[in-house]
């Protein structure tokens, strides 16, 4: 463990207490979608993002990918201000992030994800006792642009039929991390903060 990661762990020890090893072990051994058809899922995610030409289209692509490919219909994109080290809601779907308590709850795991520089899986913020085999989780995906992390996508409250995070999901998190940031944060005009509460597939 590097000195840097030791500092991060120390800083976020309280949060790490929730994302315990047993939880992560269960997630790693969760049900796998067929590798046989993984290519189709991964190709759809990549193509959808690459065909999105502006911020509005990219946000819709993120929503569709989360809903159709990952099984998550509640999400927040938190933009990261490096100067102040503060996250603020850039866009959300299915949840009201105007509530201060929600932002407070998201800030720690989002900060941890940004510091790690990789996808971070944690016990769901509202999990009151799901089974050990299928714990409810939230996933925090760093959104990159020009080599830097510009935002964190928080995927909250996965659908009940979604029983685990598999290797296809991990590949989609990676695609979102590498490809969603371009039109959102690397162009002159970024989309304004928006909030959408209704829409199901």
């Amino acid at each position: 463990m590097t000195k840097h990661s030791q500092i991060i762990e120390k800083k976020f020890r309280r949060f790490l207490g929730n994302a315990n090893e047993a939880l992560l072990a269960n997630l790693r051994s969760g049900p796998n979608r067929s590798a046989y058809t993984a290519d189709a899922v991964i190709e759809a995610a990549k193509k959808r993002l690459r065909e999105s030409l502006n911020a509005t289209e990219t946000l819709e692509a993120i929503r569709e990918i989360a809903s159709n490919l990952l099984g998550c219909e509640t999400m927040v994109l938190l933009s990261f201000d490096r100067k102040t080290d503060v996250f603020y809601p850039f866009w959300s779907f299915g949840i009201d992030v105007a509530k201060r308590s929600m932002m407070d709850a998201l800030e720690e795991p989002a900060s941890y994800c940004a510091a790690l520089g990789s996808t971070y899986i944690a016990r769901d913020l509202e999990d009151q006792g799901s089974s050990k085999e299928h714990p409810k989780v939230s996933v925090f995906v760093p959104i990159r642009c020009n080599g830097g992390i510009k935002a964190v996508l928080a995927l909250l409250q996965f659908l009940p039929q979604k029983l685990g995070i598999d290797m296809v999901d991990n590949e989609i998190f990676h695609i979102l991390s590498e490809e969603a940031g371009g039109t959102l944060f690397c162009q002159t005009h970024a989309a304004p903060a928006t909030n959408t509460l209704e829409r199901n597939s």
Partner: protein
Amino acid sequence: MAPRKILLVDDSKTALLMERSMVERHSPYQCVTASNGLEALEKAQSECPDLVVMDVVMPHMNGFEVCKKMREEEKTKRIPIILVTTRGEEAYIEAGFQSGCNDYITKPINGQEFLKLLQSYLGE
């Protein structure tokens, strides 16, 4: 013999891309697509598909309504319909079957199970 034809219906470009890619890469079936309920009804008439795979929540006309309409039309009433949605609640599934669908699956789709289901309707 002409390849079996599937009408894929979803207002999500992502879902259509994925379903189409799964079918075309891993099965012998041919695909046509529609992105809303009205277009689905038109294509069900004009394309005469062997199977319809359809999302439920869509603009203009939802999957349940399209299902009912298709069952009323002579030309489309025998076409098998699989509804695909994120909603797995019992009441929703029941509403799907009441509208006349043959099968009901939830997103995110398991590719292998999806292809097996298609095969059960269309054969090898």
